[in-house]
Every structure is written in C-alpha cells, then in structure tokens.
C-alpha cells in the first residue's frame, strides 16, 4: 500500500513538473525546470525498479540535455549582443555564459 502511495506521489509530481516544463516560455528557465523534471522522472524509475533507465535518465535528461539548451541560448544571446554593439567595443562588455544579456 505504501508502495502504491509512493508511486502515486511520484507520478503526480512527474505530471505536474512535466506541465510546468511545457508552460515555461523562456528557454533558459525551461532548461532548468527540465532538469528538475528529469530528476523526478529518474526517482520514479528507481521506484519502478528500473535503476538502469534511471541512471541514464539522470545523466542525459538532467545533465546533458539542459546543458545543451543553456549553451545554445548563451550562444544566441551572445551573438545578438555582439551585433548590437560596436565590434571594437565588445571586449569591454564580455557577455559570459552565466550573465544574462540586458536588452
């Protein structure tokens, strides 16, 4: 019975977080929410006795995929900010991957 309750909680959390991922509009935030969703999905897979799948899900779903999205967003924002600024000027305004570009 407790196993059923645990599965119920995890399934509900997965559904809720999945909806949050779909409703998040900003890609950089979405990558972070996707990472949290992937972690919950991984825990659900452990609860369903599929540790292999959970391991792959946590490595790929919570680490690699969100990282690829964040890097892509950083690249796009940096290129946009470079084109708006004077090319000679850009060394004084480096936009690192962790800094949000203000427009």
């Amino acid at each position, binding site marked *: 019975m407790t196993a059923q309750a645990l599965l119920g909680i995890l399934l509900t959390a997965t559904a809720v977080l999945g909806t949050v991922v779909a409703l998040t509009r900003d890609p950089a935030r979405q990558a972070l929410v996707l990472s949290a969703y992937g972690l919950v999905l991984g825990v659900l897979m452990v609860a369903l006795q599929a*540790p*292999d799948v959970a*391991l792959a899900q946590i*490595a790929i779903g919570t680490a*690699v995929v969100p*990282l690829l999205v964040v*890097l*892509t967003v950083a690249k796009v924002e940096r290129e946009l900010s470079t084109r708006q600024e004077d090319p000679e000027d850009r060394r004084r305004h480096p936009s690192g*991957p962790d800094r949000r570009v203000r427009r």
Partner: protein
Amino acid sequence: MSRRPASRVLSLVGGVGAFVLLLAAFVQLPDLGHVTHPYGTRAVQAALGRDTANVVSSVNFDQRAFDTMGEEFVLFAAAVSAILLLRRFHDEEEDAYELRVGHHDVWSAVNLAGFALLAPTIMVGFYVVAHGAVSPGGGFQGGALLATGLHLAYLAGDYRVLRRLRPVAVFDAAEAVGAAGFVLLGLSALLVGEPFLTNWLPTGSLGDLASAGTVELFNVAVGMEVASALILLLAKFLDQALVVRGGGGE
C-alpha cells in the same frame, strides 16, 4: 503569443484524443507487480543460462545485441552530424578572452563541489561500465556518467582546464574504436563458427566481475563510444557558446 483559433482547436482535439486513448490503454494494463510476463520469464532463464546476473545487459548485449548495434550507430551518426554542423566556419574566429570566463563568474561553493565530485563521478562511471554484466547499468549508463563527470572540471576550474583534460583528437579516435569494436566483437563469433554477435566466450560463474562472456566486452565498447560521443558533442557546443564568434553572414 497569439495563436490562431484553428490551431488551438486542433491541439485541444488532439490532446483530448490522446488522453482518452491512453486512458483506455492503461485500463487494460495488468496489475503492477502481479504479472508473469512470458518474455520476461524466458529472458531471465536465458540470462541465467549464460551466467549474466544483470538480465537487462543480457537482453541488450546478448539476446538482442543486433538491436543494440543499431542503437549504437544511431548515436554515432547523430553525434557525427552534430559535430559536422557545429564545426568552425572560415568566417568565424576564436576569441581567447572567453577562455578565462567561468572561473570568476561562479560561486566558490560551485568550484568546490565540482572539484570534490570530479574524481568520484569518474570512478562511478568506470565502475558502472565494468560491472555492466553484473549490476544495474552498463556501457551506456557508465559512458554517460563518464562524459558528464568530466565536465565537472569546467565547474571546478574554467574552460581551459576542461580543454586540457579533454583532448578532442583522443576522443575522436575513441569514438571510432568503440563503434568499430562492437562490430568487430560481433564478427569475432564467426571465427569460432558461430553466428554474428553470438556470446561465444566462456561465461564464468554468475555474479563474478569476469562473467557473462562477451557481454562485458560489448559494454566496454559501448561505454567508450557513448562517453566519447557525448564528450565530443558537448565540446562542440561549449566551443560555440564560449569561444567561436562571428560568422553566419550579415
């Protein structure tokens, strides 16, 4: 963010339809934990017959090794295409300034966590690959752990540290060796007169590290291929995000 009414109606109909169909399918599923699956029973028997404690690995690398070969080359092709698309074009330049970015932009707690977790994560990655035939995990999971673990070096230091730890040429070769190793290992069965991908090595005793015959060797090949493919893929993305600038036409 305004969508046309037609697409709203379509997505609503599609969503409700998929929901109803899934619900109808779920109602007919057997109860959780109270099922003797005909395929599951036979797969476990076949796995135990070849002293493979991890039945999932037995299915992936012995009973259904051909499917796994296909999957491995799906990953190989995907990684190679992404690497090809993200190569540096002649009108793009490398900006050395960005190599220093990273170290000062993160909390020192993040530096410390990255430093503390780097070696243990790599160790766990090797462990998971090596014990692929014995305990949960295997080449794919261990390879993914190795690839993600290595990138903790970026959190611990900066991009120059990661670049030094990750010579792209080495992983280029390792990816090819991993992918080719799987096929060559499959072909090795032909030398002893068995069909392609047959588990022909002595299987040892159940639960030992050196058990399950070729299953463990397939795990190592896949681990090498997956780790290298992910490292190369992330290397191209990191280069694009941190180092390469310009290009793309004005």
